[in-house]
C-alpha cells in the first residue's frame, strides 16, 4: 500500500473523532472520540515508521524503526494515565449533577 492510503485512513478516523466531539453531548462519548483521535495518530506514526524503515537513514542507525514504535508505546502509556483521571472527573461530575450532558456543565464558563 502507498503511504497516502494510510494517511487518508488516519485522517478519516481523526475527522470522525472531531465530528463526534462536535455533535455528541454525552461526556463519555466525547471522551471516547478523543481516544479515537489518539489511535488515528498512532496508526499514522506506525505507518511512517514502516515507510522509513528501509531508507538510508535507517541503515545508518539500527534502532531507527524501533524508536518510532517506542514513541507510539509511550503515547499509549500516557493515554492510559489520562483515561483514569478523565473518567474519575466524569464520575465526579455525574455524582454532583446526576447527568453527563455537557450542556449542563457550563459553569466553568463564567
Amino acid at each position, binding site marked *: *500500500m502507498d503511504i497516502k492510503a494510510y494517511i487518508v485512513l488516519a485522517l478519516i*478516523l481523526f475527522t*470522525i473523532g*472531531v465530528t463526534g466531539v462536535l455533535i455528541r453531548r454525552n461526556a*463519555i462519548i466525547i471522551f471516547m*472520540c478523543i481516544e479515537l483521535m489518539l489511535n488515528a495518530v498512532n496508526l499514522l506514526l506506525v505507518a511512517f515508521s514502516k*515507510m522509513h524503515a528501509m531508507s538510508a537513514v535507517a541503515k545508518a542507525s539500527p534502532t531507527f524503526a*524501533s524508536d518510532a514504535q*517506542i514513541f507510539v508505546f509511550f503515547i499509549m502509556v500516557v493515554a492510559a494515565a489520562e483515561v483514569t483521571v478523565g473518567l474519575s472527573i466524569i464520575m465526579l461530575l455525574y455524582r454532583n449533577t446526576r447527568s453527563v450532558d455537557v450542556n449542563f456543565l457550563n459553569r466553568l464558563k463564567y
Partner: protein
Amino acid sequence: MELTTILFLILSLISIGSAVMMLMSRNPVYSVLWLILLFFTISAHYLMLNAQFLAVVNIIVYAGAIMVLFLFVVMLMNLNADTEPMKNYRLQLVGVIAGGSLLLILVSAVMKIENNQPVLLMVGDYGLIKVLGKTLFQKFVLPFEISSILFLSAIIGAMVIAKRDTPSQITKGETEKRSS
C-alpha cells in the same frame, strides 16, 4: 489486486464503519462495543505494518483495560438511551459540515504530496518484543522511569478526585440529621 491491498481495504472499511456506528448509536454501551471493534481492526493494521508488539499492547491496554473501564463507568452510571435526547438537528448538521470540510482540506493538502512511497510488506524483526525491549531499556530508560512516576501520580489523582465527600462533612450531615 494484491492480497495486502484487499486486506487493507477490508480492514479500513470495518474500522471506518465501526467509527461511524460509534457516533450514531444512542446507547453508550453499544458505542463502547463498536470502539472495541475499531481497536481490534487497528491492531490488525499494526500487524500488517510489522508492529507485532504494538498490536498486542493495543489489544491488552486499549481493548482490554481502557474500554473495560469505560464500560464499567457506563454501567455504573446506568445511562439509558433516553438520557440523551438527540434534538437540535441543526447544530448536528453544522458539526457534520465542519468535520467534513476539515477532512476535505486535510485530504486535499495530503494529495499534493509528490513523495508517495510505498509501505512495503517486508520481513523485519524491529517490531518484535526482543528488539523493542532492548531499545526501551537502553536508549529510553529515563522516559520509562518518568512514565512510572506519571502512572503513580495518575493513580493518586484518580483516587483523590473520585473519593466521596470528606469524612468531616459526612459526620456533620449525620449529626444534623440526628439533631433534627
